[in-house]
Structures are given as structure tokens and as C-alpha cells.
């Protein structure tokens, strides 16, 4: 990949980041209900309140506040959470691995199942598997992950309680993990009882997150395969008597991959955003859950740090997608 394209794409992210910072600042400085008001016990003296306001810099002109804030944010100083009384950076870093583990697991599941469904629908074109895949895709895409999550809670957690619907791990098994990536770590350590508990907690939120993406992957792959199957080289392969299975996997699949990868990337951003509610529904201790809690508690430092974290993840993700796309598609690279 030419360096020029990479540089240009990286530079484009800078104004976006700055814009994100402005939006976050403006959004949060108009919060009604002084964040200080929450911290103080009823009957606190005016002077104490004033001191607290000064401590958080809320008594200065707005532009000065923005300047200080931007400098702090740029150097990673996010202050302390008002409601949890802990440094914000530590809170986010301890919760982020849980969210990433959930999102990546859902992503892998969605891609794998989506590809299988897309290929199956192509292989059995015009027969019932295609109709089944189409029906599934329509339903899975129309209903958002949030409602899938609630349905799973209801069906598999309450009516037919087969899977845990709350938390990340059985509390009795919570060992001292060295990293936040419990699943990976438990596998590497060979503690499979812990792995099993983690997986059983992961299944429902993961599937709820994965369903809409699975459907999208299946649908795009199917239509890309359909297009590829009509190309001359595929007709040629057919004429030479290759089996349909081999034609799909070896010939058409590679060309159908570009639109599928692009779509997966874009949809992964949605999936990551979806963790906010899914984590809330399943009381899963990630940054999405942290974010909602922060909003409900009007915890200003925590809200802004979480929102910024998500925005940076989104921007980084878009960069990676564009890069992958450029790698897969030479026309963009040299365009």
C-alpha cells in the first residue's frame, strides 16, 4: 500500500477527532443539573460548593474550560469519576477488554455463520435452503440487537432457564486474572472450568449482537456470489466440469469477498455500538454498561471519557476498514 494513501487517510482522521472533541465538550457543558450537585450531601455550605466547583474548574469561562479540557484530554488526563470515585482511565482500561472480547466474539461468530449461510444459499439456489436463509436474514436484520437480547433473556433465561443472563462469570470462579481478557487467559492457563463459565455467560449477549450482522453478511455474500457466478471464468470452470462446490469456494468466493469484507467492517462499528445496550441488558461489566451508568448518574468525567473512547475506537476501526479495502482492491489503492 503506498505510503501516500496511508498518510492521507491518517491525516483525514485528525479534523474528525477534533470535531468529536468539540461535540463532546459542547454536549456535556449544557448538561442541566450541575454535576457538583450530586456529589454534595444535602445541606452543604455555599463555600464548600464553591470550592468543589473551583476544584473541577467549573467556575471559569467556557473557552478557558475548553482549552484546559482539550489539553487534559490530549495528555490522557480524564480525572476521576464523580460517582465511582476512581480514576476514569483506570476504570475504562479495566472494562474495555470485556467489551472487546464480547464484540470480537460476536464478530467472529457472525462472519463464520454468515459466510456459511451465504454459501449454502448459493449452493442450493432456488430450493428451500435459499428461502430459509432469505427469511432468516429479513427477520434478523429488521429486529435490532437490543430486542433480540430481551427476547433471549425472556426465552432462555426465564421461561426455559438454560443459560445465565447476568454478568460475565460465575462469581465463585472469579480468579485473579492478569489481563482483562478472561476468555483467552483462561484457555491459555488451561482452566477450562473457568472457560466454560465464561462461555456460558457470553453466549446470549454474543448471539444477540451477532444476529443482525450474520444476516447482513449472508445477504451481501449471497448477492456477490450470484454476480460472480455469472462471470465468464465461472462459466469456463463449469464447462470444464468442476463440481459446483469447488466452483463456489475456489473460484467465485474470492471475488465475492471484497464487498463482504467492506460490509463486515462497517457493520462491526454498529456491533460495537450495540454493546452499549446489550451489556446493560445482560449486566455485563464492559464499557457500554459503564457508559449507561455514567449517564444515569450524570457523571461528567466518566461520560466524556467513555464517549471519547467509543469515538476513537470507531475512527480507528474505519481506518482499518479503508486500509483492508485498499489492500483487497487495487483500483482504490492506485486511484
Amino acid at each position, binding site marked *: 500500500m503506498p505510503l501516500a494513501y496511508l498518510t492521507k487517510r491518517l491525516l483525514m482522521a485528525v479534523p474528525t477527532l477534533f470535531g468529536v472533541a468539540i461535540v463532546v465538550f459542547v454536549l456535556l457543558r*449544557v448538561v442541566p443539573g450541575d454535576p457538583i450537585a450530586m456529589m454534595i450531601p444535602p445541606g452543604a455550605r455555599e463555600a464548600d460548593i464553591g470550592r468543589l466547583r473551583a476544584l473541577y474548574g467549573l467556575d471559569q469561562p467556557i473557552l478557558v474550560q475548553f482549552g484546559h479540557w482539550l489539553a487534559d484530554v490530549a495528555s490522557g488526563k480524564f480525572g476521576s469519576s464523580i460517582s465511582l470515585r476512581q480514576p476514569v482511565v483506570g476504570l475504562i482500561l479495566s472494562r474495555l477488554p470485556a467489551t472487546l472480547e464480547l464484540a470480537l466474539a460476536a464478530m467472529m461468530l457472525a462472519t463464520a455463520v454468515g459466510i456459511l449461510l451465504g454459501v449454502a444459499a448459493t449452493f442450493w439456489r432456488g430450493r428451500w435452503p435459499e428461502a430459509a436463509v432469505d427469511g432468516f436474514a429479513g427477520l434478523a436484520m*429488521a*429486529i*435490532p440487537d437490543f430486542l433480540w437480547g430481551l427476547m433471549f*433473556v*425472556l426465552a432462555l433465561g*426465564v421461561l426455559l432457564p438454560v443459560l445465565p443472563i447476568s454478568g460475565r462469570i460465575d462469581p465463585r470462579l472469579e480468579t485473579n486474572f492478569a489481563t482483562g481478557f478472561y476468555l483467552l487467559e483462561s484457555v491459555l492457563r488451561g482452566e477450562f472450568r473457568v472457560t466454560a463459565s465464561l462461555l456460558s455467560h457470553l453466549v446470549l449477549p454474543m448471539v444477540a449482537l451477532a444476529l443482525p450482522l450474520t444476516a447482513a453478511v449472508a445477504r451481501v455474500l449471497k448477492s456477490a456470489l450470484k454476480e460472480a457466478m455469472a462471470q465468464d471464468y465461472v462459466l469456463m470452470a463449469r464447462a470444464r466440469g468442476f463440481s459446483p462446490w469447488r466452483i463456489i469456494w475456489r473460484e467465485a468466493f474470492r471475488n465475492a469477498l471484497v464487498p463482504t469484507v467492506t460490509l463486515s467492517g462497517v457493520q462491526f462499528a454498529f456491533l460495537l*455500538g450495540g454493546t452499549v445496550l446489550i451489556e446493560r441488558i445482560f449486566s455485563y461489566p464492559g464499557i457500554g454498561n459503564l457508559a449507561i451508568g455514567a*449517564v444515569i448518574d450524570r457523571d461528567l468525567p466518566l461520560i466524556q471519557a*467513555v464517549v471519547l473512547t467509543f469515538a476513537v475506537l470507531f475512527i480507528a476501526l474505519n481506518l482499518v476498514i479503508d486500509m483492508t479495502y485498499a489492500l483487497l482492491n487495487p483500483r482504490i489503492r492506485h486511484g
Partner: protein
Amino acid sequence: MAEVRHLSLGNGRVLFGAAVVLLLAAVAFAAPLLAPHDPLEQDLLLSFSPPFWRNGTDASYLLGTDSLGRDILSRLIYGARIALTVALVAATLAALLGTALGLLSGYFGGYLDAAISRLVDVWMSFPPVLLSVVLAAVVGAGLKAVILAIIVVDWTRFCRIVRAEVLVQREQDYVAAAVTIGLNRWRILWVEILPNLVPTLLVLLTLEMGVAVIVEAILSFVGLSVASDAPTWGGLIQEGRLYINQAWWMMALPMACIITTVLGFNALGDGLREVLDPVLRR
């Protein structure tokens, strides 16, 4: 036009979607006639009365009562009013804002386009759910906050697609012809280009109405929508979740309402796309 009508009636999705949306509208308008009780009326002696398929029911509360003895059926029926209001108002306003910016951005280009496109980029860097939750918290709970949150978050959906569409239309012969005969630019944009976007806008608007119903449910669920005693479907879900082990139907019933409504708007939107989009139709 006759052809479009013919195709619409032959399209199963359009029929299903239109039926659901009409039903929603009918229930919303006739709520006072349909609801057997006042949705806010409490009867603490009759709280948690079970629905008709369980034992020990009270015949006048077909779907049972909630923790304060309010009639669940009546609350669901009145919930349709709030869902329909949010769907219509929020989606229309988001469409207006997004379309206006998309038209300007696509047609006039230059700095304006750069500025608007940048703004869209910035907006798309936030997870939509998180942005609407933060917005609703900032504006303060209530129906207005919900509607505002939907407009402010979802205008980009319209803006991006309208801009792309205008870029295509701008290069068409009919625009060149209009320029040649000396029509001014606003007139070209308004009278020549905009009508060609109507099918696309109609599809987007219908789909957005489904999104609006979901966002309202999400904000209620998080506790940031309308006041807690107002009967919104999202609020009913949130309340039902508290009693999920004793009375699962309290959550299942409003979820069924939302899912049906969303599937209806989606089917209508997708069906209209099939009917209106000549490329897809072929």
C-alpha cells in the same frame, strides 16, 4: 402512477407493512374507544392480576394488571399513540433536516459540501445509541427529548444518501437542459432535482419510522424517555423486566407490540423500495 399502484398491491411486503401501519394508526386514534380502562387508573387491591390464559383472573382486565393495578391492555393501546407520534414527528423532522443538508451539500459542493461532509463524519464517529442516550440525558427526560435525540442522531442517514443521489442527478441531461434555459439554481434544486428523490426519501422515511419506535423504546428502557407513569411500550418493557420472574408477560406483551410495529415499517419500506426502484424491480 397507475403502474406503481398496481405493483404496490401485488407486493406482499407492502401489503403486510401497510396493514400493520394502518392498524397502529387505527389503534392510536381510537385509543379512548378501544381501551377498557383509563391507562393511568390505579387499583392497588388488584395489582398483578394475571392475564386471561391464567387462573385467578379478573374478567375486566383481559391482559392483567401491573404493579399498581393499572390495566396492561389499556396501557398497550395508549402506548400506540406515543409510538405513532414519535415515529411520525421524529422521522419527518430528521428527514427534513437531513434532506436539506444533503441537497445543499450535493448540489452546491465546494466548502459547503466539505463542511457538511465533515460534520457527518464526526457524527458517524459516535455509536448512535450512546449519542441518543447522552442527548436525552442532556435535554432532560420527556417526549420532546426523545424526538430531539432521534432528529439530532439520525439526520445523517438522510444527508448521506440524499447527497450521493444529488451528485448523480446533477450530471443528468435534464439538469443541463434546465441550466441552459436559464433556470436559477434554487429552482433547479427544488423543482427539477428534488422530485426525482421522492421515491428514495419515501423509502428512507418509512424505515426511519421503525428506527424511531426502537429508539423511543431504548430510551424508555434506559429510563430517559417520557415520565414513568406515561404508557410507552419501552417503559412497559422496563417495568416488566423488574417482575420478569413472576409475570413474564408484562415484558413479552409490549415487546410483541414493538416487534410487530418495527417489522411493519420495515416491510413497508423494503416493499416500497422494490416497487419504486426501477433498478431493483428489473
